[in-house]
């Protein structure tokens, strides 16, 4: 059942992604509508899949790589809807949907069986820690997409070649402020994730911090976003550098997420 729901959701996301790419090259009202509608259907199916796994597994379904990727994608879609309906940022889908689709695709390639929880994970910290981490990372994924949009639009204006996407992309200030806002959402969530993780580690393994690769990469990510926020607050640092750093920040998240999984080392191996 969950497999059918997942595959259907993946198919809808795939279709939406295809349209978001055509939208990138040639805008039309129909495709931009279709993108939203297909994504909504995908999201509903995706949500049902997660609920199904929650009911069957008896815990929040983010305890194996397949579930984690899928849940990560789900959080991003949620945030995408929020931005899409609240701010109507043109072309946002072209930058966000491919990320969602790739996450879902990688999720679909990973083993899907619902396994019973290892004793160490059986804790209320599981829900708290992972929810903070994933929502935070979703905000950073969004800021990655917005950052790319910023760099493109800024390049047009700076180089004075006002062609291509220039007409359709939002203003530089809009993108810059949106990027900042997303980081101000993501950063506290990431901080809470790290704190709750440390507390959980203390109860599970008896020490707050174990320097396992996931922890180290999270710390690096945290530092990158801390730099962006600090520099902005202190000296108004914004624009290109902030956009570039938010892109790098998300790449470190991806390394932490997938890279470490491939290494199969450390305490977070179950994820």
């Amino acid at each position: 059942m969950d497999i059918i729901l997942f595959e259907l959701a993946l198919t809808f996301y795939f279709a939406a992604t295809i349209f978001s790419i055509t939208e990138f090259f040639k805008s039309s009202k129909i495709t931009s509508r279709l993108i939203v509608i297909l994504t909504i259907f995908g999201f509903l199916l995706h949500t049902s899949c997660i609920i199904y796994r929650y009911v069957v597994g008896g815990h929040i379904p983010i305890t194996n790589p397949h579930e984690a990727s899928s849940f990560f994608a789900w959080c991003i879609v949620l945030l995408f809807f929020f931005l899409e309906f609240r701010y109507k940022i043109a072309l946002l889908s072209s930058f966000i949907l491919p990320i969602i689709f790739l996450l879902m695709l990688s999720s679909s390639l990973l083993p899907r069986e619902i396994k019973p929880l290892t004793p160490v994970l059986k804790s209320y910290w599981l829900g708290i820690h992972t929810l903070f981490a994933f929502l935070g990372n979703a905000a950073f994924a969004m800021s990655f997409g917005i950052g790319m949009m910023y760099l493109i639009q800024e390049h047009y204006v700076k180089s004075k070649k006002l062609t291509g996407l220039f007409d359709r992309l939002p203003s530089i200030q809009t993108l810059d402020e949106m990027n900042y806002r997303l980081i101000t959402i993501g950063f506290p969530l990431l901080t809470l994730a790290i704190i709750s993780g440390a507390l959980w580690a203390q109860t599970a393994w008896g020490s707050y911090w174990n320097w396992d690769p996931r922890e180290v990469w999270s710390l690096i990510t945290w530092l990158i976003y801390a730099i962006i926020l600090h520099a902005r607050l202190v000296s108004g640092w914004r624009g290109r550098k902030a956009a570039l750093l938010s892109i790098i920040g998300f790449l470190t998240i991806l390394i932490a997420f997938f890279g470490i999984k491939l290494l199969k080392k450390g305490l977070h191996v179950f994820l």
Partner: protein
Amino acid sequence: MNALVIGLNHNTADIEVREKFAFNGSKLDEGLKAFKELSVVEEGIILSTCNRVELYANVSDVDKAILDIKGFLSSFHNIPLESLNRALYIYTDKEAVRHIFRVASSLDSMIVGEPQILGQVKDAFELALQKKTTGVLLNKLMKKAISVAKRVRTETKIAENAVSISFAAVELAKKIFTDLSKKVFMLLGAGEMAELAAKHLITSGVKEVLVSNRTYERACELAKELKGKAVRFDDFINEMVRTDIVICSTGAPTYILTKSQMHKVMRERRQRQVFIIDISVPRNIDPEINDLENVYLYNIDDLQGVVDANIFERKKEAEKAEKIVDEEVEKFIKWQESLDSVPTIVALREKAEEIKKEELERLLNKLNNLSNEEKEAIECMASAIINKLIHPPTAALKNSSEDKEVLVAVIRRLYGLEDEKKR
């Protein structure tokens, strides 16, 4: 009598080159005087705008005139001839007339249809009238150019889409800022084009308007007109800290805002985005400022790119306008041909002969009893009278080379030859 145009514009010369050739401020009076003093130049006008520097002349020896005028440009601006030749275009006679008509009608403008050029053409003509550097040909040519421009404007939609520097500037501002109504705007200097751009921007709604000028009184005047606040010129850099959009067009010969000054401003304004439009030639804002983060500096050439997208629509209207210009060029050339002395001499003689014939017939009809000898004697006398009467004007037309156009025009008018031809 040959119309001659020598000049350069945004298509043939970069802003760096145009800066060097510009006749701005006192250089214009001086240049016009020196230009008219060239022996080859019978009449002369200099049109110098941000986008073009053009010399209009009436000359008799075209080849020599081209050489001499080039020499004049080179020595006046201290630029070697070779670099000059690359940028210059030269039009004579019919093509010169067409070019001037096209310029005035804004068909040759960087932004086709922009309205400022007509004012600039009028100003150039007025200065020439004031300095008495024009005569029959250029006076007629310029008056005609202005009326052609007006005809183009009323009969085509070429100027309708508010397509100008100002339009481009506002469009860009909207792609830099989220909401213009929260932005502070400063007008630096008071060029006509800058003022227009400022007005357009203000109509799109900005939070506050600041006006600064080297002469504070002028800043106050403009501030009143634009419902803004005047800022002393020494203070404008301080005000930059809270200004988001700047349009700059002062007559300053050098940069009034350097990179290091702007760097400091950016630090003080916490790196908030700034959009600076420098439409002055020579440029007033150090172009390297564009390298600073969150600063977007556009000069007049850069704005070209902005309007490219709209050019297609205007091209259709421009085609209509070109047809009007063609028509008017033909008319003008006919008029000019009529100014040639030979047809005038012929026309004068014809007119005299006609009068003689008419009067003789009437007289001879009344006097029936005359002998053939008597008739001949009367005819002889009539011929002698008209010959003596038309001899001085004919001789003057044949001999004088200096005021020939004036003479032709006067004689045609006095003897009613103009009407004769029309009939």
